[in-house]
């Protein structure tokens, strides 16, 4: 029977399962992802394009978007350097406690982000474990630097997680060849290892950046949520929603939605491009 069916499906060189399964996939995505996203666009635009533009160009909205991008950028730079270094050390050397370190790096993935924010407050807050010894001018919490710290914590494992498997499965014969013709470790790393990691580095960076821009739970605790000073885009959206200004919230939400679309499109195409290189 099943043999008959499979023959039937392939008659005239047409596989009916293909369009069917694509349709099922899209149908599943429709209520879960696509419709919620669509409603942001519909409500954001419902008051007209002028209102949308006004909401978007409000000084606090612009500031919030800028603050999100800047703090996310620095968190990404740090986590990329860290992730690369950690992946290199852990992939190249075997030592006692190696697995424990990998587990430690991965911990932030499963910690609720609000806990991350609270943990930072308990450590660096003005009355925190270490924060109480900081001079007043160097308080970190409730400044943009606190947002960077929170972003670093929350996105800590992402870049590492992308780079590590590539490094582990990399063919090491090229590195060995490089070493035998007299290249220093640094030269080998720079000219042989790094180019092979390009795709993973770009991927890890974009993933970290995108995740940072959307971060909410930890930021609301450590930033102080002061509009125009420490209010990031997700906090702005939440504040506007609570004020009942749904258009203003949606305008910024649309920017973030478009942004993540762009990020993942880049990710998709850049990977092919970099790896074909």
């Amino acid at each position: 029977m099943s043999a008959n069916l499979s023959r039937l499906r392939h008659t005239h060189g047409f596989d009916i399962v293909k369009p069917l399964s694509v349709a099922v996939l899209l149908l599943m995505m429709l209520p879960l992802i696509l419709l919620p996203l669509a409603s942001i666009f519909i409500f954001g635009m419902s008051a007209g394009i002028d209102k949308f533009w006004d909401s978007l160009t409000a000084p606090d909205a612009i500031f919030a978007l800028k603050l999100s991008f800047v703090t996310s950028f620095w968190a990404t730079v740090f986590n990329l350097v860290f992730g690369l270094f950690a992946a290199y050390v852990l992939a190249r050397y075997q030592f006692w406690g190696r697995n424990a370190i990998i587990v430690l790096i991965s911990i932030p993935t499963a910690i609720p982000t609000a806990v991350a924010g609270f943990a930072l407050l308990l450590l660096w807050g003005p009355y925190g474990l270490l924060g109480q010894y900081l001079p007043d001018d160097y308080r970190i919490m409730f400044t943009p630097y606190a947002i960077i710290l929170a972003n670093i914590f929350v996105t800590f494992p992402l870049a590492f997680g992308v780079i590590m498997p590539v490094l582990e499965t990399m063919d090491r014969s090229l590195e060995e060849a490089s070493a035998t013709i007299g290249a220093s470790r640094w030269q080998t790393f720079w000219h042989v290892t790094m180019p092979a990691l390009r795709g993973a580095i770009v991927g890890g960076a974009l993933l970290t950046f995108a995740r940072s821009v959307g971060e909410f739970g930890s930021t609301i605790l450590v930033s102080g949520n002061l509009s125009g000073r420490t209010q990031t885009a997700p906090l702005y959206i939440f504040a506007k929603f609570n004020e009942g200004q749904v258009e203003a919230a949606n305008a910024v939400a649309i920017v973030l939605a478009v942004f993540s679309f762009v990020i993942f499109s880049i990710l998709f195409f850049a990977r092919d491009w970099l790896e074909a290189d």
Partner: protein
Amino acid sequence: MKYSICVLFVAALLFSACLPGPTSSVGNRTITVYAFSIMKESLERDIYPAFQEKWRQQHGEEVTFNSSFAGSETITNQILQGAPADFAILSIELDVQRLIHAGHVPEDWWVTAQRGIINRTPFVILVRRGNPLGITDFADLAKPGVRVIHPDPVSSGGAQWSILSIYGSELKKSEAANGARDEAKALETLRAVWKNVISTPGSAREARTQFETGYGDALITYELEGMLMKQAGALIDVIVPTSTIFSEHPGVVVERNISAEEREVVYAFRNFLWSDEAQKAFVRNNFRSSTNESFDAANAGFVKIEMPFTIHYFGGWEKAYPDVIDGIFRQQVKDNR
């Protein structure tokens, strides 16, 4: 490879220029205000600009306001964790007590003619337009099938006012009828209403947003919220209970966070809140005046309440919190759902 490093370098330069550094204030004053959720409109629309103008005329300096709005308990917790508030406007006096306890606010903060209270507003019930469920008083919220939205007393001061309002209104009414406060009846009403609560949002403002999106049949909240919603064209009716509480909102200087040179402007701002100009601005923004009741006549939207009462009916917050919020609500209502 080299190309991408150049890109990264340029990006780093661009972004580092954007990072807001520590704000230096030369010839410029900054006041950081943490206020409970419903204060937003009145401060931003009227109070801040009026004070900025006044200070500019008197001192020739610009005052910048930074503000953060959330549930009263939430902002109190943030300040206790070190949030840089210079001035706090809280929904309940008990939060001030917590700040005093941690050494953020001096104990004599209330030694002003208004006992630290900057404005007030009574508690009302909001229902859908036309009042389809026929709600006339708190007790009606206990009817089967009524879905009540009530903010969470853990994070919201408004929620605690609301509990005191439901409970106190029964005491007040029974006292008017038979000369004695019927505590058993009050407990029963509070319990029955609480059984119908379907959602406990974090602040009065969050509760309103939830109600506005179409969830629930009734919302207990500040009169001001009902007036704002009506002005915004929401399809609601305001139901005035026979007896209800006037919430009174304290404004305090967070002494611990202000430096000697900030002191003058922060205290000037506090005192400004009790000026006739500011009190009239509060009335325009649907708060009732805490200094002069005759100002309230300027706002035609205010409802008339038959049997109003305040926190003093319970003997002040120092008795109301342990007796009603903790003793009655937490121990006999919430855990007995």
